[in-house]
C-alpha cells in the first residue's frame, strides 16, 4: 500500500473509533456561528450581510480548535517517533494524515454550511458560492495549520501558540473566501477569487507537507 493511502486510511480508522473527534469541530462551528445573531441586533438584513463572514470566521476557529489534537496522541504514544524513522516518505505520510483530518473537519463543516446559511437568510443563489469557497479554502486551512500543530506538539500549552502563529497566515484565505460572498451579493463575478483560493490550495498541497515534516524533525527530540 502506498504511503498516502496507508496514512489516510489509518487516520480515518482512528477518527471513527474516537467519535468525539468527529463531533467536536462541527458542533463548535455551529455554536460559534450562532453566537453572532445573539450578540447583534436581530435584523434580517444585517445578518444576511455579515452571514458569510461569520461562517468563515467560525470555520477558521473550528479548524484551529481541531489542530491541537492533530499530533497530540501520536506524540504521546510514540507513534510520531516511529513515523520519523520508518523508511517511507514523511511528507507524503503527513499529507495523507492532513487530508484525512480535513475530511473530518473542513469537509464536514463545508457540507453543513448551507444549513447555517439558511439561518442567516443568505439567498439560495449565494449559498453555493460560500460552499464552493469553503470547499476550496478549508483544506488550505488544515494544511497550513498542521505546520503550527507540528511546531507546537511537544509544548504543554501549545494551543494558544498555534493560534498566534497560524491565524495571521490564514488571512489571505479568509479575505478571498469571505470576499467572494461580498462580491456575489453585489452581483459581481467570483471566478477570480475561486482561482486565488485554488492557487493557495495548490501551494499548500505541494509545500506544506515538507514544512510539516521539517517541523516534526525539529521539535521531536
Amino acid at each position, binding site marked *: 500500500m502506498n504511503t498516502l493511502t496507508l496514512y489516510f486510511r489509518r487516520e480515518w480508522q482512528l477518527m471513527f473509533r474516537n467519535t468525539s473527534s468527529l463531533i467536536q469541530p462541527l458542533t463548535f462551528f455551529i455554536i460559534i456561528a450562532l453566537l453572532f445573531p445573539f450578540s447583534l441586533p436581530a435584523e434580517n438584513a444585517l445578518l444576511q450581510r455579515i452571514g458569510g463572514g461569520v461562517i468563515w470566521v467560525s470555520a477558521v476557529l473550528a479548524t484551529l480548535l481541531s489542530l491541537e489534537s492533530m499530533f497530540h496522541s501520536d506524540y504521546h504514544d510514540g507513534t510520531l517517533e516511529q513515523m520519523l524513522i520508518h523508511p517511507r516518505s514523511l511528507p507524503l505520510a503527513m499529507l495523507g494524515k492532513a487530508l484525512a483530518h480535513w475530511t473530518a473537519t473542513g469537509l464536514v463543516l463545508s457540507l453543513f454550511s448551507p444549513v447555517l446559511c439558511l439561518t442567516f437568510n443568505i439567498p439560495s443563489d449565494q449559498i453555493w458560492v460560500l460552499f464552493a469557497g469553503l470547499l476550496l479554502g478549508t483544506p488550505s486551512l488544515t494544511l497550513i495549520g498542521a505546520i503550527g500543530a507540528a511546531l*507546537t506538539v*511537544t509544548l504543554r500549552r501549545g494551543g494558544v501558540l498555534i493560534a498566534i502563529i497560524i*491565524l495571521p497566515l490564514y*488571512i489571505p484565505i479568509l479575505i478571498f473566501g469571505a470576499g467572494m460572498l461580498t462580491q456575489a451579493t453585489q452581483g459581481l463575478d467570483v471566478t477570480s477569487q475561486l482561482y486565488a483560493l485554488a492557487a493557495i490550495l495548490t*501551494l499548500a498541497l505541494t509545500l506544506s507537507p515538507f514544512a510539516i515534516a521539517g*517541523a516534526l524533525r525539529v521539535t521531536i527530540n
Partner: protein
Amino acid sequence: MNPFTSIWTFLSTTYHRLGSPREFYRISRYVTPVFGFLFLTLSALGAYFGLFVAPADYQQGDAFRILFVHVPVAWMSLFVYVVMAVAGAIGLIWRMKMAFVVTICSAPIGAAFTALALLTGSIWGKPIWGTYWVWDARLTSELILLFLYFGIMAVYYAFEERKTAEKAAALLSVVGVVIVPIIHYSVEWWSSLHQGVTVFAEGGPKMPPSMLLPLAFMAVGFMFFYGYALFLTMRNRVLINERKSKWVRALAMGESI
C-alpha cells in the same frame, strides 16, 4: 591566482569566520561602532535636509515630513523579515549556528521597525485622512507583519531547549516568507485606499530630488542602524549561548581574545 578563485577563497573564509561565534565576537567588536557612526551621520544629514532644506508640500504642508521616518522604517520592516528568513533557511540547510542567531536577534528589531511604521503611519494619517486608523491595504499588511514577528518570537521563547527553539523559529520565518507576498496581494485586493506607489513608479521617481536625497540618506542610515542594533544584540546573545565555552570564560576573567 585567478581572480575568481581568490574571490571565492575570500568569501568562503569570511563565511567560515562569521560562522564561528568566537570569530564573530572578535570581528564585530570593530564593525559595530562603524555601523553606529554611519547610522548617526547619515540620519543626521537626512534629518537636516528633510526638515530644513526640503520645501514644504503644497498640499500637506510640513506634515509630510514624517515621511522621512515613515517610509524608511516601513521598508526596513520588510527588509529585516527577508534577512531573518534567509538566515533561517541558511541555518536549517547548512546547520550554521550563527545564522540562527541572526534570525533570533532580527525578530525584535524587525518588530520594532514594524511597530514604528504603524505608529508613524497613524500619526501621519490623523491630519491627512482625519483618522488614526483606516483599514487600508498597507497599514493592514504592516499589522499582519507585526503579528508574524510576534509569532516567531513567541515560538522561540516557548521552547526550553535552545537548539529546538532556534530551528523552530527559523522554520516559521521561512514559512512566513512564502506567505508574506500572498498576504500582501490579498490585502491589496481587499482594499486600496492608500496612495499609489510614488518612489519606485515607472518612468522614474515622482518626487523632487530635494525630497529624494534626504529619503535616501535616511533609508541607508536606517539600514546601518539595523546592522548596528543587530550586531549589538548578536554579541550579547553569542555570549549567552557560549557561556560555557572556554573563550567566554576567559573573557569574563578579563583576558582578551
